[in-house]
């Protein structure tokens, strides 16, 4: 078997194990930890009748292992289950009905942020090492150190303070009517995208910067310069390419941070995405919604990780050698 395939196989296996463990943790935290999910959903003042009805509707009389296996097989086949809170209200809303709209909204928000994030973090990360010790180098490194430390909800609140309260240029919320398209009103997406960019960009810039600094000190860059190769060509042909390979992994990591950041950012701007859906479900103790949404996010997270490994492997032939 070729080393590439072996590497791929190992990573795939690792990803499956991680997701399997994640599914057990999620299920256990939501079904076994609270003791009785039905009384959790109904709250303290539930009548015994309501409790019995919900237990029956959620099929909680079956053993936890059976429920776990059923949930996981359903999930793998694309059946995310039925919202527990809707069952308690005598309705039958599937989780998919609740999340398909928000999922699309979140994907749009994340895509816009990622679209700006990747070129910007490469661009800003490369400038510093090209002009070491110059004001622009200091400005970028101080700003990124500051930005990396701020939680999304603080960044978002401060941006609202500047662009809405002080300047009144941009709206402080991003409201999308059910079934509407967030792109219909692009100005309200500016602040959420900026908030997401601010945090994830800073980390990316620092990594690209570290990679570029290192590469610029290598012997092949020195040699190229001494041979009289034009500086522009040294940077683009010799330095940047080699600096970018390790950065790919970091950029993938940034995309993962986007997923976490999006949960908070959506809440700051009341944006109807998967993050606000999750937070609402946690507040309402809707265990089935939390269960499936959490699993879905974990899958996206692990897949991104896997893709990053793949791209890095394609860029750096060294890694393909068996260890």
């Amino acid at each position: 078997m070729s080393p590439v395939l072996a590497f791929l196989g190992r990573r795939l296996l690792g990803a499956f194990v991680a997701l399997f463990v994640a599914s057990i943790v999620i299920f256990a935290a939501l079904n076994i930890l609270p003791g009785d999910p039905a009384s959790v959903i109904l709250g303290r003042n539930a009548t015994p009748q309501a409790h019995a009805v919900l237990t029956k509707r959620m099929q909680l009389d079956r053993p936890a292992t059976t429920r776990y296996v059923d949930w996981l097989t359903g999930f793998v086949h694309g059946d995310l289950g039925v919202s527990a809170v809707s069952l308690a209200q005598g309705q039958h809303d599937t989780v998919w009905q609740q999340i398909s709209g928000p999922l699309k909204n979140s994907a749009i928000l994340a895509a816009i942020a990622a679209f700006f994030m990747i070129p910007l973090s490469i661009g800003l990360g490369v400038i510093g090492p090209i002009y070491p010790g110059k004001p622009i180098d200091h400005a970028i490194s101080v700003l990124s150190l500051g930005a990396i430390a701020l939680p999304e909800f603080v960044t978002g609140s401060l941006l609202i303070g500047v662009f809405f309260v002080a300047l009144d240029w941009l709206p402080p919320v991003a409201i999308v009517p059910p079934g509407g398209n967030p792109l219909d009103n692009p100005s309200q997406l500016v602040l959420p995208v900026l908030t997401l960019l601010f945090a994830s960009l800073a980390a990316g810039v620092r990594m690209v910067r570290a990679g570029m600094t290192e590469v610029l000190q290598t012997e092949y860059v020195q040699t190229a310069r001494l041979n009289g190769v034009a500086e522009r060509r040294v940077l683009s042909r010799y330095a940047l390419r080699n600096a970018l390979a390790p950065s790919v992994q970091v950029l993938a990591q940034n995309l993962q941070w986007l997923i976490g950041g999006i949960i908070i950012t959506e809440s700051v701007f009341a944006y109807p995405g998967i993050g606000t859906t999750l937070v609402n479900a946690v507040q309402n103790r809707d265990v089935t919604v939390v269960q499936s949404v959490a699993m879905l996010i974990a899958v996206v997270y692990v897949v991104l990780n896997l893709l990053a490994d793949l791209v890095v492997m394609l860029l750096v032939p060294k890694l393909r050698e068996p260890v």
Partner: protein
Amino acid sequence: MSDRFRFLRTTSGAIGAGIVLFVVLVAIFGPYLAPHDPAAPVGIPLSGSSSHAWLGTDFLGRDVLSRVLYGGRSVIGYAAAATVLAYMVGMAIGLTAGYARSLVDPVLMRSVDVMLAFPPLLFLLVLIAGAGTSVAVLIIGVAAIQAPAISRIVRTATLEVSTRGYVEAGIARGERAFAVIGREVLPNIMAPLLVDAGLRFTYSILIIASVNFLGLGLQPPNSDWALMISENRTYIQLNPWSVLVPAAMIGLLTIGINLTGDAIARSLGRSYVPRATRSVVS
């Protein structure tokens, strides 16, 4: 100035340490300076700054300045509690794994890999959905998120130190494992762990504040900077201070710790320290 505080001589180190000191002093001594009861209404809701309430009032008419002065204790206290708890668990596992390799090592390494493949905030939200919103759940959850990575760092440091002559001498003298770990291993892995602990502390602040902001941690009517932001942000136009001042306090604290941590790492001669803050946050 002793060697240990060399980082204070750098500009960023001095600024960072100054900022942290300021915020911590506000958090500790703020409640004694507060002009009003943080839970009692003192005027018309959302009025602007006046001589009576310097930073105006919040959405229930409570004094914003007093709430800011009271609101730092929970931010710093809970984060410190979570970090200490995480370190207690992480040290126990990491020392065992590093010192008595065959026992826990493989299990530990795999479990850390799994944890790293799972968004931490998501883990916390799932835990809260299952166990309910309470401070105890929040602290235990944040500690659980951090313990695996800490144990990995402790293990690596222990492994390295365990092969040194002074440890082998201790074992050769017939000392018990506890004594060797306590007297020979621990003192020698302290320095790198302290830097790491600082970063973990920032991370604890970030994630606990984020959960409080989402309304899934500390509940009203407590004064807490993150909670203040989420309570008042709908009315930001009426009294911006009620949101911007607590936001600035949290921002100052995390930026200050990061600047200080960076300067310390540099003075220890490491050009690059992996940043715990973001790599685990979301």
